[in-house]
């Protein structure tokens, strides 16, 4: 049997913990090259036209990784999430549920001969990993422990970078510090060392200016929240305009909210020493507007917009890929919340032909308007999506 060389779709920095865990378990991994317009165009050429943007980008990733020697495509689907009728993760009531199989179909049509490994499809994540790696349960648990810790640290580093970028003196300084910090993170593969890391130290050298940044919450579709290349790098855009960003879901939070198994979920929460708001609480907050799950993280978007309002944020950005069923359903609800609470919400819809200029003008205006209002002392105001 030929040796399996795995690849995975890019989604923000999620490849980093994956690679660490894979190396610990002695699995060969090829990370696809960074997403460029070429990647997206390549993916779009082979994907169904009406499918959501993330699918197209993922296909582009696969094809480019193939050129670099990968022969097995890996994808993760959380089948438990769907069964709970709460959406979220791969098993949720949206197209993501079919991604794994659709990808296989698309690859076949493109005439590419590859293997697929769809993790978590039938539950039993650890069993599947055992089969692939031939390692024991204890070793796998250890690798997962390091990986989930890394996921969380990357997330926290990113969040710190958004805070710094809004007040940086020299544009670009934060981005440089962030990249360096992530490199340091990627070089470490022991839980203890990761645990002792001081993330603030990555940004210690950044000169800041005295100003009160605007605080903007970001809700919406998970992939767009995570992958800057798919959202026209809006976090950087907002930071440079002096706005501090906070994302409602990161990868770690999403995994904890929708764990791949009950025991594993409890373990992860314990490793990270983190409590996660129970799903029932999210449902309760969203209830005046939405009484059921609409798949994906739709209900989270509704509840977290209200959470952002209550936490005193200046506005919320809502991101969705064009045609995303859960978020399209949520969109008019956010508009209503915006009117009811007198709270600015801007919806941005992305596809592979979006021009960065079109996004930039909306974001610049959004930030300008919020700032003008804040200066005139009326902090909250409505700004329905455009």
């Amino acid at each position: 049997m030929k040796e399996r060389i795995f690849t995975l779709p890019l989604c923000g920095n999620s490849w980093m913990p994956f690679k660490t865990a894979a190396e610990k378990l002695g699995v060969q991994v090829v990370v696809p090259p960074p997403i460029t317009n070429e990647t997206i165009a390549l993916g779009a050429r082979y994907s169904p036209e009406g499918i959501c943007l993330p699918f197209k980008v993922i296909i582009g990733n696969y094809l480019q990784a193939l050129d670099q020697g990968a022969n097995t495509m890996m994808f993760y689907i959380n089948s438990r999430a769907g069964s709970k009728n709460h959406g979220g993760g791969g098993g949720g009531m949206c197209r993501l549920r079919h991604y794994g199989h659709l990808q296989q179909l698309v690859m076949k049509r493109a005439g590419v001969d590859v293997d697929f490994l769809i993790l978590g499809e039938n539950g039993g994540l650890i069993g599947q990993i055992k089969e692939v790696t031939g390692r024991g349960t204890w070793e796998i648990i250890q690798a997962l422990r390091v990986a989930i810790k890394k996921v969380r640290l990357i997330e926290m580093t990113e969040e710190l970078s958004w805070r710094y970028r809004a007040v940086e003196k020299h544009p670009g300084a934060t981005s440089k510090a962030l990249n360096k910090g992530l490199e340091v993170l990627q070089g470490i593969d022991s839980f203890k060392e990761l645990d002792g890391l001081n993330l603030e130290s990555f940004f210690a050298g950044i000169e800041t200016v005295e100003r009160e940044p605007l605080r903007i919450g970001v809700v919406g579709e998970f992939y767009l929240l995570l992958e800057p290349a798919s959202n026209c790098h809006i976090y950087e855009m907002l930071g440079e305009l002096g706005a501090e960003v906070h994302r409602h879901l990161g990868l770690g939070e999403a995994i904890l909210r929708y764990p791949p198994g009950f025991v594993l979920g409890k373990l992860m929460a314990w490793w990270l020493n983190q409590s996660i708001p129970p799903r029932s609480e999210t449902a309760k907050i969203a209830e005046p507007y939405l009484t059921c799950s609409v798949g994906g993280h739709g209900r989270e978007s509704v509840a977290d917009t209200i959470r952002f309002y209550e936490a005193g944020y200046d506005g919320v950005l809502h991101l969705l890929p064009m045609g995303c069923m859960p978020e399209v359903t949520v969109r008019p609800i956010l508009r209503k919340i915006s009117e009811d609470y007198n709270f600015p919400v801007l919806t941005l819809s992305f596809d592979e032909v979006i021009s960065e200029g079109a996004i930039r003008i909306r974001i610049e205006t959004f930030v300008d308007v919020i700032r003008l209002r804040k200066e005139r002392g009326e902090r909250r105001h409505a700004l329905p999506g455009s």
Partner: protein
Amino acid sequence: MHYLGVDVGSVSVKFALIDQEKNVIDTLYMRNHGVIPTVKKGMAQFREQLPSDIEVSGVGATGSGAGFSKVLIGADVHKTEILAHAIGTLHFVPDVSVIFEIGGEDSKVIFLRNGIITGFEMNRICSGGAGAFLDSLAGRLNIPISDVGHLALERENEVSIASRCTVFATTDAVHKLNSGYRLEDVLMGVCNGLVRNYLAMLYRKVSPPPYTFQGATSRNVALRYALEQQLGAEVIVPPYAACLGAFGAAILALENGTTQTRFKGFQLADFEYQIRSFICQDCENHCEITQILQSGEPIASNGSRCGKRNF
């Protein structure tokens, strides 16, 4: 002390020069035949028309080409056209509630309350409700664009034009002309269709008047008529309606409190500018870098994701 506003749009470039009391000294509206020659022509025209003792103390840039024109002219502030239009309009109609702006390729609706922007809508993926289509149709029929409005108001019969997509609307209009419909009737049908499309796309939240209508298309009387008919209310066309974005940008420059302007002066018209663009091969991002050269020397460069080629 004078302030200059420049609005570089997709179809035209607008200039407005104001004094310290926000009085308009002069405006220019020019077809956009490429930003560099158009801006140079505008500067040359200002230099000719204006007394030589005019001193520009601040420049504001806006419009889809603002990032580029900012460097070219040496602007001190750079804001989006939504803000610029709102600020320009508020000067003339302080209690405006909805601004309808139909430009060449993009169109927008801006909602305001008590002089403050509360929301905005812009066309997303289709320029169906925008003016460039009227322009191309007029060109095809060999009518000056400035006559379209007056001709259309002389209609006698209602003609309905399929206007959801402007490509098909042109086809439909030409087809109707070929089947013997009167030109005036067809033109009014086209104007009605354009406004219908615009309102259907962007005006989904109904707000009470006063309404204003601006952008270069506001000079078309038939469009204004169609808008009033379909809204069922009077629509104000403010003074300098075609150049309000530039006027707003000039006000922003005035309020910016610039002490030392970066403006390059009207002699800008005499410089030689070139554009060079290439794809950076330093990493996988393959950014498209655009540089402006002034007499062979690069004065600005942008487009690089990592920032190392931007200055």
